[in-house]
């Protein structure tokens, strides 16, 4: 036990909750931020590139810009749903983290995965009730924020 200026070092078992939390924080292994960021950047970029290709394809075919955007979103969501149903999207997510959570494919994954998981509790109390258990907060606060933004826009206009 080391003596610092006559004061004996405090034992871990006598730590206050705060001291113990700081000690745990110090010794716990950390996430590898740099490699996680690089992975997220590459996979997220790839997903967006696929979306851009699809969008460009429709634009070249002479489709209206708004409609091409909507159809691209629908196709990307379908890809996210398909990869979730094939048990692949969770593996992509494990590798890419935010890179596959943030794009619209990740949003599809967050709705389909609880729907699959809770199918065992039936279509009403299972699929129906639990489908938005992950995406629900995003929708509630996303829509609320857009309403607020809309009001501010209206007032400033």
């Amino acid at each position, binding site marked *: *036990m080391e003596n610092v200026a006559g004061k004996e070092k405090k*034992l*871990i*078992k006598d*730590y*206050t*909750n*705060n001291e*113990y*939390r700081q000690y*745990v924080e110090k*010794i*716990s*292994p*950390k*996430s590898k931020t740099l490699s*996680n960021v690089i992975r997220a950047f590459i996979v997220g970029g790839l997903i967006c590139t696929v979306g851009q290709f699809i969008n460009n394809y429709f634009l070249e075919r002479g489709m209206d810009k708004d409609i091409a955007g909507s159809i691209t979103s629908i196709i990307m969501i379908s890809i996210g749903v398909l990869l*979730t149903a094939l*048990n692949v*999207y*969770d*593996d*992509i*997510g*494990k590798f*890419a*983290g935010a890179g*596959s*959570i943030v794009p619209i494919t*990740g949003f599809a*994954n*967050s709705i*389909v*995965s*609880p729907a*699959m*998981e*809770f199918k*065992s509790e039936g279509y009403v109390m299972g699929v129906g009730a639990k489908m938005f258990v*992950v995406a629900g907060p995003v929708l509630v606060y996303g829509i609320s924020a857009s309403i607020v933004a809309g009001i501010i826009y209206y007032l400033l206009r």
Partner: protein
Amino acid sequence: MAEKRVGKQTVKFQNPPVITSTASIVGPKEGKGPLGSYFDYVIDDELWGEKTWEKAESKIVRETLSKLLEKSGKSQEDINYVIAGDLLNQDIASTFGIRGTSISYLGVFGACSTICEAMAIGSMIIDGNFADNVICVTSSHFCSAEKQFRFPLELGTQRPPTAQWTVLGCGGVLLSSRGQGPRITHVTVGKIVDKGIKDANNMGAAMAPAAADTILTHLKDTGFAPDYYDLILTGDLGIVGKRICEEIMAEVGFDISKRFNDCGLLIFDREKQDVHAGASGCGCCASVFAGYLYKQLLEGKLKRILLVATGALLSPTSTQQGETIPSIAHAVSIES
């Protein structure tokens, strides 16, 4: 004072109950782990022919129980009590697994410490002369635990490095008043310790002070030195919790590092099987004891062990309400 009590929290048995038989069933990932060959049966898919994860877990409990009866040559009528528990709400894996039997049932919950809690109660019942044969069985299922405590399986998320992997497995032990096998000489029932950890992805850190408290109390109560035991084995502290527990013990003058390990680090190859900080779950300590340790004791490779199952007594609701994690550890002293 009750004559079988020693010290503050420990019970010393006058007629130490005998562990006459054990049985274990684990999942495919556990089967591929370093202890794979020690388990009685490895199922080849997580549903095991059932429609839901919960049904699959109940089936594993049911089959472990019948395997245990088969191995011990006993019938249901010979068993006075079955003490069981798991991680699911209202202990449904245990109750639905056991409902087809005619054995008196006691349900217990101690999160991942449940196997040692059950063995402690079972041993007291036997030494108290209230029963001749008691079965203790606990289970956990990775998929049903994820569903209840975390996220849907197919959700594409990352786990932090301190997270632990719930074992798909079940372990059962048969305690008898007489017979051949290792004996339970002492049990130290733990008290709830909460050092203010809130992170449900770092349960090892939450449980380590409880484990150290119980081991320390056990050594003080019995007067044993740590080297009395060939092995002191915690339930599921993982790599972070094991280190903290060792440090706490070392600081108060008990260097246990040479004979200390954790079931959560034995059952998987942590690096190759991608389980982050290690394994956890009611089935972790139970299947490692019933599968691996019991055989080591029978073969004489281990003479005396202290099995210290650890539990984080949290629920998804308590976590969402920002509560800290109360933890517990129970120690069972076993001699061959």
